[in-house]
């Protein structure tokens, strides 16, 4: 069970990092528009350039 002594702190550090990144992303406006990015990404594949 010794491995847990290392894994638990690592897990906790990862959570703190994840929350920090998420808060940064929210402050940066990444979550302001939850509608269009999910759809616009599909359009580029079907774009038929003529020129």
């Amino acid at each position, binding site marked *: *069970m010794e491995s*847990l002594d290392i894994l*638990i702190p690592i*897990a*906790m550090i990862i*959570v703190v990092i*994840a*929350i920090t990144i*998420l*808060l940064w992303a*929210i*402050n940066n406006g990444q*979550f*302001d*528009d*939850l*509608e*269009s990015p999910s*759809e*616009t990404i*599909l*359009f*580029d594949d*079907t*774009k*038929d*350039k*003529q*020129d």
Partner: protein
Amino acid sequence: MPSNHCYHCELPIYSTVKWYATINGVARPMCCLGCKSVAEIIAAGGFQTYYKNRTQATDTANEITDQLIQELRLYDRPDQQQSFVRKITKNNNNQLEANLLIQGISCAACVWLLENHLKTIDGIANVNISLSSHKAQIVWNSEVIKLSDIMRQVYYIGYKCKPWDPDQQYNIQFHEQRNFTKRLAVAGIGAMQVMMFAIAIYAGDFSSDLSTKYLSIFNYINVLFTTPVVFYSASPFFASAARAIKNSTINMDVSISLAIIFAYSSSLWTVLINHSPPRVDVYFDSICMFVFFLLSGRFLELKARYFMYRSSETLTDLLPKSCMKWHNGKFIQVAITDLQPNDLIRIAPGEIIPADGILISATCSVNEAIISGESLPVTKHINDKLLCASINTEQTIQMRVTKKSSNSEIAKALQLVNSAEQVKPKIANLATTIAKWFTSAVLLIATTVFLYRYFYADNALYIMLSVLVVTCPCALSLAIPVAITATTGNLNRLGLLITKSHVVESLNLVDTIVFDKTGTLTTGNLKLTNIQPIANTNADYCLKLAVSLEECYDHQIARAFKQQLNNSNDIFTVTARKNFVGNGIAGTINNNYYRLGTVNFASSNSKLEHPTTDGQWVLLTENNIPICWFNFADSLRPETKNVIKALKGINKQIIILSGDHLNPVTKLAKELGINHFYAQKNPEQKLEIVKKLQQNKRKVLMVGDGINDVPVLSVADVSLAMGCVANLNTSSADAILIKNNLVAVVHALYLAKKNHTITFENLLWAGCYNICVLPLAIMGMIAPWMAAIGMTLSSLLVITNSLRLINKKFPNLSDKQHGKS
């Protein structure tokens, strides 16, 4: 029905198709030059897939005028750019970033088209457009391209744009939303972590080989992750509960807060002080999930409110962007935000007056329809007050600004709309009352259960917590307000602005609809209805003379005359033409002197009488001899007939209540098939009639167009005003039809009915759920985590059900409607 539809804006084309644009090798019909050029630019850029991917048609494109280009140039000035442009200092020296509001975005394909079109332009480094706020963030190199050229590109593909100018309420909502997202994120990640360790504890409990050392480590870690969830994520619940207690009431947040505080402190006590924990008494996982699910429900509600607020924003778009201001000896173009009191400005005919002010040039006439509902132009003399947002109709005028547009009468009226949205509906307050009694009952039951269990059984705290959590009347309290929020937002987008929130519920009870005639059932615009030549003159010849005289003017009567004109070459040349504002026009044709206008103006014989009392009569005289009478009358709105038919289809009684003469009212009632009508009623009589209807237990919806309807609007159960914002000042109307289209009345009734159904479903579900689950909780058959999931899911169900109202589509009016629903 026309067989052709514009390929770009999807509107029907009634005449023969004059314009085509080639898209993917196929010539597609276009309704106007504006749409044609936009479609061609889209095709030339290789963005044809836009037409395939879009889910909603766009607005009809506008042609780009020189004036527009001039106005856009204003935005190149650094002082104008101050509020919405900033320099990017990081890397490149000349990169600027602007925030623009794009108008006309309807779906994700629009965003794609705009972003990709703009990215192909030299000098633009990055474009980012938000579908939810319609805000565009554009980064460009100021040495390569000017901002006005970028904005023009937006217009080229059929959209409009202006500087992003958020008001205070927007900022508050914006930060509220971001803060909420953060709280949700912390609660979500916290819940995942705590759940991970909680499962380890449960598993250890199950296999009973978890050492005490790890058990207490896991518990400590859970304390660590739960604490921010309780104190940060759940703080809105505590704040709301504190407010409620301060006002000596109980709301659902009190119950939520109590559940969280009890669970948290008892778990904390177990872990920190009572070191040998009985495992079931640690609730960190329940707390985190509870908070996370509750927040998701609230987040959806916040989104609906936010969306509703955004959809009512278009009102501010009424005003022009720029105007001509007297500065250092000449008129220069300035943005209207730059106007200060005492500035002297010039307004060309047809332009919108950009601020409140005083007329300092000669007599003119302005159309104040948007403010007063009066459809005929009003004559203004020197030193008269001019109102912001009214339209200058005839000649160039000069005025001195007294109040900026942001302080003007109309702006004040608009602010009332926003404050009105905050008023809680009566029936929603009823729901809060239900929640209050329910919470008190639950607290009482929880205490009793706790005391009983504590003295006569076991697991007292555990059972009490689950009773508290499971019965929280969240869904019950959400049931009504969320549905109303969604319906109101939907109606706002249709052009029906709700200013008092009881409207949605009251509309469903309405069984009698009373219409005013002029300006409501009719357009309030004049139409030539009768020509009466005097003596032996030819009617067509007289009409031709009149049209020639009026040809270069743009007031109501001139427009009505010009509608008669089939071929613009077919008129006489007029010399020495002179316009007498408010009276008429004089001019010479073929050496004969003609006067066209009011009786007193056109003829020196003051004893001349109008042929009838209907409508408005205009006299034409030739060398001072009367030769022809023209009669003008109001014309029916194009949608009126269908609207009345649809309203009859849903069994509403329809009544016309007019101040007009008996003849025209009878004629109109007959045309529309309405049996109940009243004519020649003054405001007091109108009031009496509606009161009498109400005494007969009728619920009355009054639709009127302004000033003379104000008293009757205030007495009706629900009142709708036609596009006249000033009514808000008297706060007599409950709702305003800003798009001036009666179809919205039918849609509003339809939506009100749907709202009622959905609210009923919500209440039924929430009530049943709570009643079924309470006994189970008292018997200790529901674990706290089950309770948390159960009640949150029930709230989410209620919210999602209500959100169906946001995009509810309506039955098409042009299809024959026999429906009961």
